Each structure stands twice: as structure tokens, then as C-alpha cells.
């Protein structure tokens, strides 16, 4: 292949390939950039709506009050008053929508998550060592979670 205008043919070919790659990049960029990208910031604007319309799992304490006012009254007088109901009872949205849907069964693990002995926890938090303490089959045999000092 002869030189065209003194430029070696391999260089001409490489320049063409480079231009093709750059063109390919910008074409891909044009077609692959999501439609709402950059609408509000460095993300897809449509993703906000997608997140907002996801099904909810947690209902919040106030939803429980509608039917369980008594239990909330009781718990608000004792140590567990700052906890959300769903901390122990689990996500409750499906139960709020349909009260027939049962909540997660509370097991000893729910109590031990906070009350198992761990030196990194503050000393005012009641903690137990399972080997020394576990006298019964279940925590709730002796303790009332809504009224822990009982």
C-alpha cells in the first residue's frame, strides 16, 4: 500500500480505528445514559419514585396505638418505653393492613440481642450470662417484656 500524502498507511488506519472507538463510546453514552439521569443530581431522577413506591415493611409505633393503646400505655411507664414496638415484634406493616396476618413470634433471641452479657455494653443495661442465669425454658416464663421489672 502506498503512502498517501506522505502519511504512512498504518497511521491512517490507526487514526480511523481511534475515531471509530471514540464515536462508539459517545454513541453508547447517548443510548445507555438513563433518561432521567442528572434530573436532580448525579443519579436517575426516576429512582426516587421507584424507592418511594416500594412496599413498606415497618408501620411505626403510632399505627400500633390504634388497636393496642393499653399495651402502649403500660410499656411507656417502664424501661422499654424508648423502644419501638417493632424492635421486638418485628416488621408490622402487613399486620396493620390485615390484622389477621400474625406478627413474628417472639423468641429468647429478641431479649438476648440486648441483654446477653457483653463487656462493651454500658453497665446500667441489665445483662445476663446464659450459663448462670437460664433457669427456665423461656425468658417470658419469668419476665414480662412490657413491664420488665415485674
Amino acid at each position, binding site marked *: *500500500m*502506498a503512502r498517501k500524502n506522505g502519511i*504512512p*498507511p*498504518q*497511521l491512517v*488506519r*490507526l487514526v480511523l*480505528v481511534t475515531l471509530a*472507538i471514540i464515536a462508539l*463510546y459517545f454513541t*453508547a*453514552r447517548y443510548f*445507555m*445514559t*438513563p433518561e432521567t*439521569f442528572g434530573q436532580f443530581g*448525579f443519579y436517575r431522577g426516576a429512582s426516587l419514585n421507584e424507592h418511594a413506591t416500594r412496599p413498606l415493611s415497618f408501620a411505626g409505633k403510632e399505627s400500633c396505638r390504634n388497636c393496642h393503646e393499653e399495651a402502649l400505655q403500660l410499656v411507656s411507664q417502664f424501661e422499654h418505653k424508648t423502644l419501638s414496638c417493632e424492635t421486638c415484634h418485628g416488621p408490622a406493616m402487613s399486620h396493620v393492613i390485615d390484622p389477621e396476618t400474625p406478627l413474628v413470634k417472639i423468641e429468647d*433471641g429478641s431479649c*438476648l*440481642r440486648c441483654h*446477653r452479657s*457483653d*463487656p*462493651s455494653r454500658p453497665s446500667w443495661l441489665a445483662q445476663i450470662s*446464659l450459663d448462670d442465669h437460664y433457669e427456665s425454658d423461656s425468658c417470658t416464663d419469668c419476665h414480662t417484656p412490657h413491664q420488665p421489672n415485674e
Partner: protein
Amino acid sequence: MMSAYEIPATDVLPQVEGYIYPNELNLLWGDLIVLYPYITGLVAGAFILASLVRVFKVKALEPTYRLALLTSLAFLLAAPLPLLFHLGHPERSLQVMITPHLSSPMAIFGFVYAWYLMAVLLLELWFDYRKDFVLWSRYTTGPKRWLYLIFTLGVTDISEESLKYDARLCNIVTIIGIPSAFLLHGYVGFIFGSVKANPWWGNVLMPIIFIFSAIVSGIALCLFLFMIISQARRLKMDMDCLDVTAKFLFYTLIIAAAIESLDWIHRLYEAEESIHIIKTLATGKLFVSIVVIQAFLGSAVPLVLLGLIQIFKKDIAARAREWIYFLSSVLILIGVLAMRWNVVIGGQLFSKSLRGFTTYKMELAMASHEGFTMSFALVLLILPFVILWVFLKLFMPVEEPGPKGEPLTRAETSA
């Protein structure tokens, strides 16, 4: 995988020592992220070896030139795969190039990678191989012929003038390639070095440590492969080439080991608040991988072995030197892998509270998503060797294809 919140406390405590924060229980970066800097390091290192021939005109290394470039390319093609498997959504990977955020080192990696692949390695290989592609496309048949024809990009001019031009352009590409190789791997070190919240990582020396360990591992890999391939192809071992490669391996290993020692001496003397946890880590959980494998087997032993050869080369028989080179290269390759492990895994084992440790358990089970992707680490470590094997078949054939009765010699085919 369960979040730390869902794991009952009874299952958690055995893997924790001292005090850690809840979100430090599970390591976010596993063995795939160990593999990623290892493979990119081998790419950069192999390229530096090739540039010793091209730019610095080290004649004795010429037999390793093409092998080094092909090794570099084979490993470069495999380099982003650990990241893709780690993220678990490989189909989203192109987004990092399509909508790159300039404050993200990972986004910039996409461009550094593309630059290194297309503007450096492929270009250099193309200029070096152009004449061969043209000749091979003439003398082969079938799909191979088509492959070589495509690789010529339609340029069949192999006049002397044209080849001279190739050589000149190839030199320019290599000169651009050296800082590019440093950039490719320096950037990997930068990613870790810029994490200022982690005293094990956040260190300005990190990119330099990574670059030199990369060069060491790349040269060791080429030395290892050169010996294996010569053996497999029943070629006479080119001792001159081996000696010079090992000499460069020794020099770069001295620099790498010196910089890493300097880092340690500096840390120990400076004795920042993190020094206690770092010392406990290095002498405890990481003792085997950092002291035994990385420092002793991966650095000290090869330094002594290669150093002795530099002094007593004339007194050591060629066969013995071969074995020492082979052993040293394997030890260095394992040592550098251990170094990557110590950086990536080690940096996540201790708590930000500097008061406790968690444990890394490698999952090889297929049952969990994490275990499934982690199992790919081994496959991904073998993959570049498979790619290289294909490259060797295609681009470094045992017998050069030539017109019947006049086989081409090496001297005739190299530009």
C-alpha cells in the same frame, strides 16, 4: 447473607475479639478484591520488563519481550473480572464508563484501564506484530488466516521503510506506556492509600509500595513463564536471558523490600495511636501471611538467593541457577499475593475503635451468593494463564508459518 443485625448474638461473638462496631463484623472486600490488585500488578510488572528491551535496549532480555507483552495483555483482560464478580451485577459495569463520576477512583479506573489496554498494550503489540500478521496471513489457511488478516487491519505494507516507522512508533508507545503502567498500578495503591480513616491503608507510600511490588511480581511471573515455556517447548534454556532477568528481579526486589521496610520502620517510630492494633494484627492474625510468607519466604529468602547468585555467579552451575531462579520466582509470586491479602483483608480485620478484631472466613460453598462469587477467585486466578496459552498458540507459535521449503526464522520475523 444476613446483616449483622439479624445474626443472633450467640453466633457473633466467637468470631470477634475485643470491641468492634456492629458494621465491622463482616468484611466488605473479600478474596476477589485481593486478586484484583494482584492481577493488575502482574500486568504493570510484565510491561515494565518488556519496556527494558524496547526503551532501555537490554539486549539479553529480548527473548522475553513478546512473552512479557502477551502476559501483560492476558492478565489485563482478566483484571476487571474480580471486580465484576465481586459486585455481583456485571451487567451494570458499563455504567461506570457511561456516567463516570469524577470524584470516584473506580470510575477513573475504567478510563485508566481503557487507555492502558488500547493506547498502550494493543498498540505496542500491533506495531511489533504487524509484519508477522501480514506474513502469517499469507502462509496460513482457514480461520487462523482470517484472524491474522483482521489483525492486520487491512494494512499489508511491510516495506523496510514502513517497518522502520513501526519500530519508531512502537518506541514512542512504550515510552508513554511506562508512566501509564505506573499510573495503572499506582492508582490501585492510591485507592487504598487514600482511605484516611484506615491507618493500615491511609499512607502516601501506598501507591509506591504497590508499584514496586507490581514490578517485582511481573518480572517474577515472566521469569517463571519463560522457564516453563522453554521447558515445555524443549528449547535450550537461554541462561544469559535468565541471568539478566534475575538481576533485574533482584534490583527491583531490593527497592520494593526497602520501601516496605521503610514504611514499617516509619510506622513503628512514629507510633501513632493505631500502632498497637497494627502490631497485634501483624504478630497475631496476620503472622503467617505477613511475617512468614510475605516478609520471610516472599522477600528475604529470594533476596538472599538472588543476591548470592549476583556475587557467586561464576561458581554456581547453570542448572543450579535455573532451580534457584525458578524457586525465587515462585516464592516472590506467592509473597506478593500474600502482600495483597495482608493489605486488603488485614485492613478490614481490625475495628475503627482500634480495640478489637473480626475474622475473615473464606466461603467456598456454592450455597450463598457471597460463597458463589468467592469461589470464582480460583477460576479467575487460572483464567489469565488460559488466555496466555491461547495467545502463545496464536502469536508465539513453536514453528513460524512460512512458505514451503523456506521456514521463517526469528530474526526474519521480528521487526
